């Protein structure tokens, strides 16, 4: 057991260092990794949305999946399974993505932002914890998406193969994709370095079963701090790294790719916490599960990409804070569409939670 805890801590430290490194090498600030943002960028590069500033084939997503796939095969943990309410998972993935893009980050980026001194991530963390607690209420009421079943091996290899195919095409003929020339999508570490770093992170995340929602969930549900150690290790590493490298900037206003619209930061992450508990893991964990053979997690990832497309096609995503010509702060946030989408997201999660809790009693 002791060894397992060390593995989680080491994986957390490695993720933290990798994030700092990727930021130093060109990724946007406080965005060494952001599973939601990077899947959104890939969706944009594929033309699923046309927000010109957030389109890029992020090698980090490809690398995490390939690293986790390799580790799961090496440890004989790869098992192709599917059938646990895939359509519901698709919808949940989309809702989680919309919530994440309202806040401008997945739970992993929330930790990275916190480590960079962005106090909006603290607001988000409160919302995230509330969301996790809501999810747990339904887990205790018997919520389940039902079991999955063994499938032919090909099912479990879909995400690694699809991403590898897209990535090879990106290396060979980048012009077929829509790639940002300005904005966050244009800021990235060198492709192959990012890929290699992410492969290591993916392998470690699979080995340690890192999950940003799992730490808080297991603490609330079982008083088990095991996964929370990973969460804390990432935060501590990034905090120390940012302080040492001068990337630490404490405050709410005008943080990098962030807005200080507090209520919506909070509510966006309530959606993410709640939805992730229903899915059984955060967006990072979904990638790792998909790479380990889960067809259900693969569908979730596709659902997240669809959610990202909706978020940008219907202007649901948060806009960052900015400073105008007069030097005054213009608080970003979300428009009416985004607010309505968050409320619809809550309604969707509530219905799914209730319906699937009752099913258990049949």
């Amino acid at each position, binding site marked *: 057991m002791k060894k397992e805890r060390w593995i989680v801590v080491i994986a957390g430290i490695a993720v933290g260092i990798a994030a700092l490194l990727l930021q130093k090498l060109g990724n946007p600030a406080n965005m060494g990794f952001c599973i939601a943002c990077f899947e959104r960028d890939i969706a944009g590069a594929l033309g699923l949305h046309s927000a010109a500033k957030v389109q890029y084939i992020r090698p980090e997503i490809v690398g995490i999946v390939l690293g986790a796939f390799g580790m799961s095969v090496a440890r004989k943990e790869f098992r192709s399974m599917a059938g*646990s309410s895939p359509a519901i998972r698709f919808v949940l993935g989309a809702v989680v993505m919309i919530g994440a893009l309202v806040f401008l980050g997945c739970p992993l980026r929330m930790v990275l932002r916190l480590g960079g001194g962005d106090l909006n991530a603290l607001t988000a963390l409160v919302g995230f914890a509330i969301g996790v607690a809501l999810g747990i209420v339904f887990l205790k009421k018997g919520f389940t998406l039902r*079991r999955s079943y063994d499938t032919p091996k090909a099912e479990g290899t879909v995400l690694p193969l699809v991403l590898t195919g897209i990535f090879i095409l990106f290396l060979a003929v980048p012009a077929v994709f829509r790639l940002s020339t300005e904005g966050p999508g244009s800021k990235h570490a060198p492709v192959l370095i990012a890929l290699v770093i992410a492969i290591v992170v993916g392998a470690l995340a699979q080995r340690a*079963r890192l999950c940003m929602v799992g730490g808080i*969930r297991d603490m609330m*549900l*079982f*008083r088990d701090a095991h996964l929370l150690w990973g969460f804390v290790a990432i935060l501590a590493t990034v905090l120390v790294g940012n302080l040492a490298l001068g990337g630490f900037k404490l405050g709410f206003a005008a943080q990098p790719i962030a807005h200080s619209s507090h209520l919506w930061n909070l509510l966006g992450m309530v959606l993410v916490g709640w939805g992730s508990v229903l899915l059984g893991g955060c967006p990072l964990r979904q990638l790792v599960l998909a790479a380990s053979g889960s067809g259900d997690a693969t569908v979730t990832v596709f659902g997240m990409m669809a959610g990202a497309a909706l978020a940008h096609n219907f202007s649901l995503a948060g806009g960052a804070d900015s400073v105008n010509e007069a030097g005054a702060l213009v608080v970003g946030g979300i428009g009416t569409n985004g607010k309505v989408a968050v409320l619809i997201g809550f309604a969707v999660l509530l219905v799914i939670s209730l319906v699937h809790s009752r099913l258990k009693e049949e």
Partner: protein
Amino acid sequence: MIDARGLLCPMPVVMVQKEVKKSAPAALEVLVDNRCAVDNVSRFATNQGYAVQVEEQGADFLLKLSK
């Protein structure tokens, strides 16, 4: 016996927790199909004072919990 095959974490642990709370059994068998569930159920059971024995059954795992 609890059959938690096909379920992702934390469901297998939630099922074991429910059973332990309900009847505090001296012995309990849990069938799971992935390593993650083996680790998580084992950790939970150990924290609850159970000894855990893991038997591989084909591609599945039978966990024997006893006090």
